[in-house]
């Protein structure tokens, strides 16, 4: 197990390096020089000496390969540059916004697992009944609803028509019960799609497992339906379900950008969108890298979950 953990952990580094490289490439692909990107609309009012300083600082007067190494070194040192808006280091601008986003992602996934998996398993166990049709119809409808629209509908119904939940914001930072209260609507908004996806996947995974020979054997032994399903069925159906949770968490991380914008939650996604409109590109770049790092970390956790569920994975 330890060897497996260490091996997977060392795969994180190349993945992170790849993501950081992609950001470097995308910025170099853009029309205009990196200085245009870094300074944006501020270029014309920036003194020549400052431009020269930035050019030197980023190594932009050097060949591209050297520039890349400069850039890598800076990122490794945790230096993501400075915000153009207030001259603060990007790292200190974005870190306070990490918590609301992590809470939102956790809330969304939590709701999705709590609702989606039981609903999908129930649909599989009651195949071709009204339960099955009901769950599957709801799932495909929910998969089709744009998250921003669903958020607005939730706000309209549950914060205005029946005003039981707060309309927007993240609540006072540090006051956990109130923050959780503010988290309910956004979590439902972001988790609904994942719940629908999980319900579909759980249903087909359960159906597949229930068709296996060992399930027939378990039934033939005279085990109760409950024991068959819980001991023999679900554990084996868990692999594809965990895969989907892992894949979907990555999608969900991207979705926080939308949900935080709709609900005006002070998270990483909203910070990124605000930075885009402020043309504060160093902050945008920092957010993008942090998001990618989050996805890579989620993939790592998914691998660990595989190993925990299926001991065979450790040796493959």
């Amino acid at each position, binding site marked *: 197990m330890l060897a497996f953990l260490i091996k997977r952990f060392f795969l994180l580094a190349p993945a992170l390096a790849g993501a950081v490289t992609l950001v470097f490439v995308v910025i170099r692909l853009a029309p205009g020089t990196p200085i245009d*990107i870094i300074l944006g609309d501020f270029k014309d009012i920036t003194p020549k000496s400052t431009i020269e300083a930035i050019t030197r600082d980023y190594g932009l007067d050097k060949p591209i390969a050297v520039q890349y190494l400069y850039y890598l070194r800076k990122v490794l040192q945790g230096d993501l540059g400075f915000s153009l808006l207030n001259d603060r280091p990007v790292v200190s601008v974005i870190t306070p916004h990490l918590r609301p986003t992590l809470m939102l992602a956790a809330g969304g996934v939590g709701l999705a697992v709590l609702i989606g998996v039981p609903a999908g398993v129930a649909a599989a166990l009651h195949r071709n009944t009204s339960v099955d049709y009901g769950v599957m119809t709801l799932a495909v409808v929910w998969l089709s609803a744009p998250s921003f629209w669903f958020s607005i*509908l939730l706000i309209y119904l549950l914060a205005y028509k029946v005003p039981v939940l707060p309309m927007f914001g993240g609540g006072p930072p540090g006051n956990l019960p109130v923050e959780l209260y503010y988290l309910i609507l956004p979590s439902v908004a972001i988790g609904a799609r994942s719940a629908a996806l999980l319900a579909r996947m759980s249903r087909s995974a359960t159906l597949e497992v229930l068709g296996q020979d060992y399930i027939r054997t378990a039934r033939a032994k005279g085990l109760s339906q409950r024991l068959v399903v819980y001991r023999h069925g679900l554990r084996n159906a868990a692999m594809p379900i965990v895969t989907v949770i892992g894949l979907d968490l990555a999608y969900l991380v991207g979705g926080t950008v939308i949900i935080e914008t709709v609900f005006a939650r002070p998270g990483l996604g909203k910070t990124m969108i605000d930075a885009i409109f402020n043309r504060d590109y160093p902050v945008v770049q920092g957010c993008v890298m942090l998001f990618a790092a989050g996805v890579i970390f989620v993939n790592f956790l998914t691998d660990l979950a595989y190993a925990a569920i299926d001991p065979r994975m450790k040796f493959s």
Partner: protein
Amino acid sequence: MRGDWGRAVRALLRRRSAACGGAVVIGVLAVALLAPMVAPHDPVDQDLSRRMKPPGRPYLLGTDDFGRDILSRIVWGSRVSLGVAAASIVIGASIGSLVGFAAGYSGGAPDHALMRAMDIMMAFPTLLLAITLVTVLGRGVGNLVVAIGVANIPQFGRIVRGEVLRIKLFDYVDAARGLGASHLRIIVRHLLPNVWPTLTVLMSLRVSVAILSEASLSFLGLGIRAPAPSWGGMVAEGQKFLLLAPWMSLVPGLAIMALVLGLNLFGDGLRDALDPRLRAEGT
């Protein structure tokens, strides 16, 4: 191959949900093509004396904060939605297939390098990658299409590669090679027709993702610029007046949902009819 497609179409029509989905998609397509004839009013004609009228006559779905007819804006907006999604999926599928064929057919080091590149792109959620690209490239319909298209490359690359790896081991490919067929001939005559069903299914499923991406980007203000109507932009504009005129954002959202639902039902049916294997990919 022709017989396969005929069977697929019949299987598709037998599934009622897939047929309904197909009907919705064809309906939206017709509305988009015939927009000037279908739209009851001018989609950009402003008149503040009729601003925020609730749904009724003569403005069936109400008017927005500039007094523009929402139904007409939805009708014209369907062009943006379908056009951007279709064009971006063509880009994503073409480049993705090239990558998939190159990697799967050559194997070895090129395969390894291309797939690592796809993995790196996959570390960025599709929407986030599209947002980043639009930010760097600048706004505009063309850049929007490129951004959503490029963000879709890895999904196509990986699945096409998987198919090519599977199919190139078949005996008839060996036989063709034994008869002296060139690489190009093997790819075009023997591999492509067999990858095509999977590619079609994947395209139909990814179009709905592309529609949601375009709507999301427009919602965030990174897509089509006002006053041109786009569904996502209309929802965003309406959110400001949610308490006064809820139809402004809720109605265009329903249009997005109906189109995506139609595409999903159709795509699910197509997948079951043409390529049940894709079910396991979680697409």
